[in-house]
């Protein structure tokens, strides 16, 4: 039983760690904000579920029941808050005129992403 | 001193060095930046560095958090990390946020009074109003002297 739990928790933690790393790489290498959002949701969902799930199995193994309950709560909370925060963030960015980099507007004069967002903020303030 | 002992020394003091560097960064922001909010951020940086310095000193290798473990669950003696720095720094954090709120409140008032949070602009405004006051004072003093002289001449 204990060995089975151990193996399962290894599996979960390795999966979770991989997803975390993938999310980090995506956050660095993706071309624009909206695609990066996509990458950033990996550690928020599967990374958290994997790593914390593995820790939960270890907690079950060691009999730390309080910590098992708290870890499950953390998983639930992050599964709620992560997507909500990202959703709100992208909506705000879009409504403030932060244009996604699409292949049709990838011309150099339409690129200045940073300037765009500042203009958007100013516009928002005037309302 | 051999290489290994030098490296050991470096690892053993790395925390303290980074703390000193952070402290100095905060200090530099406080004295070199002209923006009042940035100054308060610098102060916070300095404060956190001091807190980290204390906590680093309290850590004991192989120690555990200063919450008593159930003696039935462990065999042998348990080493606890020093609880005293934790106690002192815990309250320091909350006090720190309260006092930096006070600083921010002052900044807000300054902005309302002077229309700026840049140190040099505030000083310039102060100097201008001082000069204006002095000019007014000088004018009124000259006026008073004139009337006095006139009264004396009259007498």
């Amino acid at each position: 039983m204990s060995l089975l739990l151990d193996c399962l928790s290894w599996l979960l933690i390795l999966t979770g760690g991989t997803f975390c790393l993938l999310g980090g790489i995506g956050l660095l290498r993706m071309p624009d904000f909206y695609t990066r959002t996509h990458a950033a949701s990996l550690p928020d969902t599967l990374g958290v579920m994997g790593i914390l799930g593995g820790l939960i199995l270890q907690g079950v193994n060691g009999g730390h029941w309080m910590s098992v309950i708290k870890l499950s709560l953390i998983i639930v909370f992050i599964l709620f808050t992560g997507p909500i925060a990202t959703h709100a963030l992208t909506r705000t960015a879009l409504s403030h005129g932060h244009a996604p980099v699409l292949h049709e507007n990838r011309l150099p004069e339409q690129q200045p992403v940073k300037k765009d967002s500042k203009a958007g903020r100013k516009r928002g303030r005037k309302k | 001193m051999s290489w290994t002992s030098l490296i050991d020394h470096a690892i053993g003091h790395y925390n303290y060095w980074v703390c000193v560097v952070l402290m100095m960064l905060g200090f530099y922001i406080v004295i070199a930046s002209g923006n009042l909010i940035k100054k308060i951020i610098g102060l916070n940086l300095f404060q956190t560095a001091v807190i980290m310095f204390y906590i680093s000193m309290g850590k004991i290798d192989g120690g555990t958090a200063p919450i008593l473990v159930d003696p039935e669950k462990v065999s042998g003696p348990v080493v606890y990390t020093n609880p005293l720095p934790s106690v002192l720094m815990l309250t320091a954090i909350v006090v720190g946020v309260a006092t930096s709120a006070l600083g921010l409140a002052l900044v807000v008032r300054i902005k309302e009074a002077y229309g700026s949070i840049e140190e040099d602009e505030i000083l310039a405004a102060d100097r201008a109003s001082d000069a204006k006051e002095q000019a007014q004072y000088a004018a009124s003093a000259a006026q008073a002297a004139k009337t006095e002289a006139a009264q004396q001449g009259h007498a």
Partner: protein
Amino acid sequence: MILYAVAAGAVLITMLMALARALLGPSLWDRILAINSFGTGTVLMIAILGYLTDRPEWEDIALVYALINFIGTIAVMKFIKFSNLGGPRSGNSLSDL
């Protein structure tokens, strides 16, 4: 023990990459996103540290972080949206946040 070390390593590298994005991040939005990710990394790191040092009752801190991180992100977005945390007053209509 090795298990936790592996997990800690993965999370630390992720945190490093998120920090790099927060420092580079051309737009404001990238920074906010990176900080949100960084916060998730912090939660994981604290949870792992609890097991790594064999005191798993520390998950309280991770739990607090999971909650507070969200509040921070919402506050930042509200600030951008209304340039004031008080939000729209005097009944002007809200668009979606």
